[in-house]
């Protein structure tokens, strides 16, 4: 394994450029739709035009879009993400910090479980290729792949929460449990509340991991070195383990690439399950044209996705000694 420092520096530079471009897009697109947040405030609070103009100035919404962007960047470089209109001018960083842990938990657990199950199923069904069970599971996976996430989430919500009463319907915790601080009861309560969003996120992301792993396994199982391993009398379970180690590499990359889709899924999940994470906050920010909050969330998402890809690249080199980063 050789990791060229030049390569990493180049990738970091690329990442910064990508993040900056995302930042521009996140800044421009909300402003392209008609109206600005002060119009909404003006209607809500019955502000006069003079008052509205004063607020516009204070919020950095005066001037053309370039001037607004320069103002925004000057604050951003000083670490000031602005204040959220839809959360009564609370600092954006504060709003995000309230919601972020919930999303990280949801995404972290969902991705981990998804990769674990996807890889195991991929290994198993690669060996059972062509069996009735394999074709059935593959069919179901194709079906899941074609199912819109919101539909799956709604069905699960109705069946497992409303009808069977197995899981809570919404939110992340109950008031009773949070009163007890970080206790076993609180952890169980949080797990119970996050179960449905996590299960749906796992299911919706499972096919991609499953197919990647299974296809790689099938390809590698037909490689010459596998015949050699078998010929020298190595047990089949050991052969599978060796092949799986090689087949898992693309899963790492695809997981990083699909991270963005999982984030989108989490936004929908949080909205449907009224889960108080970033997606829930983002939905409210979009509805209220809360520019600073929208920008900050997109900035954070882009940083996360770009970083995930960067880490995947570097990790790839660690996992596969043949890979050389230049």
């Amino acid at each position: 394994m050789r990791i060229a420092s030049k390569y990493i520096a180049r990738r970091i530079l690329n990442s910064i450029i990508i993040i900056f471009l995302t930042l521009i897009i996140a800044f421009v697109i909300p402003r392209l739709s008609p109206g600005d947040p002060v119009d909404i405030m003006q209607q809500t609070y019955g502000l006069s035009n003079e008052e509205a103009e004063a607020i516009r100035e204070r919020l950095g919404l005066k001037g053309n879009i370039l001037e607004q962007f320069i103002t925004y960047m000057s604050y951003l470089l000083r670490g000031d993400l602005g204040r959220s209109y839809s959360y009564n001018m609370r600092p954006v960083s504060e709003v995000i910090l309230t919601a972020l842990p919930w999303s990280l938990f949801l995404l972290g657990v969902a991705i981990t479980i998804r990769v674990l199950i996807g890889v195991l199923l991929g290994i198993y069904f690669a060996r059972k290729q062509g069996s009735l069970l394999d074709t059935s599971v593959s069919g179901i996976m194709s079906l899941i792949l074609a199912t819109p996430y919101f539909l799956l989430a709604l069905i699960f919500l109705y069946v497992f929460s409303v009808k069977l009463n197995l899981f809570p319907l919404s939110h992340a915790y109950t008031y009773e449990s949070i009163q007890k601080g970080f206790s076993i009861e609180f952890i169980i309560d949080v797990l119970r509340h996050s179960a449905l969003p996590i299960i749906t996120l796992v299911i919706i992301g499972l096919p991609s991991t499953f197919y990647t792993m299974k296809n790689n396994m099938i390809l590698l199982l037909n490689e010459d070195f596998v015949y050699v391993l078998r010929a020298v009398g190595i047990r089949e379970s050991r052969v599978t383990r060796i092949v799986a180690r090689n087949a898992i590499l693309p899963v790492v990359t695809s997981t990083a690439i699909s991270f963005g889709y999982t984030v989108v899924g989490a936004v929908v999940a949080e909205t449907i399950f009224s889960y108080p994470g970033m997606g829930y906050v983002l939905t409210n920010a979009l509805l209220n044209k809360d520019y600073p909050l929208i920008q900050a969330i997109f900035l954070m998402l882009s940083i996360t996705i770009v970083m995930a890809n960067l880490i995947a690249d570097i990790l790839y080199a660690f996992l596969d000694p043949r890979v050389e980063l230049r």
Partner: protein
Amino acid sequence: MMKRIYSLSRYWGLAISIIMIISILHIITTPIHTYSQITNQYVWGYPGVGRGNLNPFTATGVDSVIAGILYSTSLVWMAPNTTLIPWAAYKWEFKQVSQNLTELYFYIRDNAVWSDGSPITADDYVFTWKSIYLPFNKTLDPFGIWRYVVSVEKISDKVLKFTLARNNSFIFAVVSGRIAVPAKIWGPLVANMTESDFAKLVVDPKSDLLKVTSGPFTLEFYDPNSQAVLKAFKQFFMGSPHIDRFVIKFYESTQALIPAIIKGDIDSAYFSPTDVPTVKGVPGITVEPMPWSNNVFYLWTNNQVYPTSLPELRIALSLAINRVNLANRAGGGYGIPRYNFFPPIADSWVNPSVNGTNTQYDPNKANQILDSLGFKKGSDGIRVTPNGTRLSFELAVPSISDWLVAAQLIASDLKNIGVEVNIRLVAIPTYVDIRSKGAFIIFFGSRIYSVYSVYDPVSYILYPVFDSKSTAPIGSSTPGTNWARVIDPNLDQLIESAMNTDDPSEYKNYVMKIQELLHTNMYIIPLYSIYDIKVYRSDRIEGIQTGLQTLDTLLSVRVKGAQIQTTQLPQATTIVQTAMVTTQAPATVTQTGSQTTVATIITIYATPTPTAQPQQGLGSLEIAAIVAVVIIVVAVVAALLLRRK
């Protein structure tokens, strides 16, 4: 050693799997108690999130509801059905000083205390009026109704005097719902504040300001994205609530409330008419329309843009729309057609001689009017004006289900008279922008009116919607809600005269005359109103009220079978059930705690009977079953096909 650890690691995966399976089984098999079932609490579902500002003067949305509960110090309440309810004051007296000057004395309850145990006194009210309401009236009183307040004085610790430059019952609109805050806590805060500073004042839910409140509940917990929990205040002057806690759970949308109430996660919520069929008939759930309605859906026509600047065209559009059909279908069976411009709550002010003029369904007459204007139908059936403008309008609608239904019905009705309507779905911020800046020919939308419109329809209905001071040129945002850009000097003159008169009969005459102008010109087109619908779990709770909405329900609601510990209601706390309100108050009126004698106009609000029941579709269970069967069939077919290949 390392080898040993390595060999043990083989079993880690198995061990973790077993632990996970046991954990999952434990979670699944532990019975789930929904919030309401745990303790003696009432859970209300709210479609939206908190904003983290519990300033009782400027909070919006659900925060204003919470702040209103925390600071429940209004001297008297005027219920939406015009009932007067003594609250922090157990009685009041009028004294007519002169023709234009009235003194109003309020007697504060002896048992009225703040949550720290200190008494609520006249000083607190005097402070609140002199230091907050009156100096910051531009922010807090957009309709300028407090201009009638000449002075607020303390007579004794428990007696308060208002001097008002008005001699009729509008004064209840001045004082009803106006809370007081503790002078000792808020005094230092607002001492040197400008109005602009006050408008920006955010009261954080964790603020020390909220440690001294006065309502039936105190704030225990608040998460803007999740829920607010309020704890009963046993010393509340109107008696202790029967519940220990009031929980408000925030949901992403109105649709999210449906499974929540079916499952029992929440006890109660307001539903839109189109969502009602999904819960109606579910065992344990009661659906009850509110006995009053304060909204009107209008077709707003831009009065400054051709061709809707023509009154004849506006009248034709009005005549072409079948309001009964709209009310029945878009109102989900809980709508009422409107043939005048006022919400049902203000029906007592409707001019009977013009009610229905140009608002009755008559498509033939509408066609005749358009023919007489020379608007000829083209080959596609759509009319064209003499100057070549095609009568084809875009109708911007946010994606709210019952609004879409209404827009579709309007489009269909207008097509019958040769007017094409293209519905355009827009996001709510875009809709607000189109509406506010006048970027429309026609648009559909509702206007929700203050309960005070019952007392002063000029300040609360006519001025904000029709006065030219409430509008702005096209392209600029309107300061009021004159979105239709109505600019009529005659109308302005009448509104101004009505706002300046102290003579109730003169005032009423102006209101009648204004309505004549409205019906003659049809500046905007009233269509229908809907009743808010309260949906609650009657199998779990009882005592739901429909008067002051949240407040009276919070005092009467009980969890069935719960152990109740309450304090006795204070003496002389008799809520007026059937008070009558007048626009011509006698010179001296004394209210003694049980009945008010002011009365000439009585408004009766009957609980509406659904005019039509929407057709019941498949139940959710059936739909889920069908979806499951389809999934299985598709999976099996896919499996067989893949196997063959």
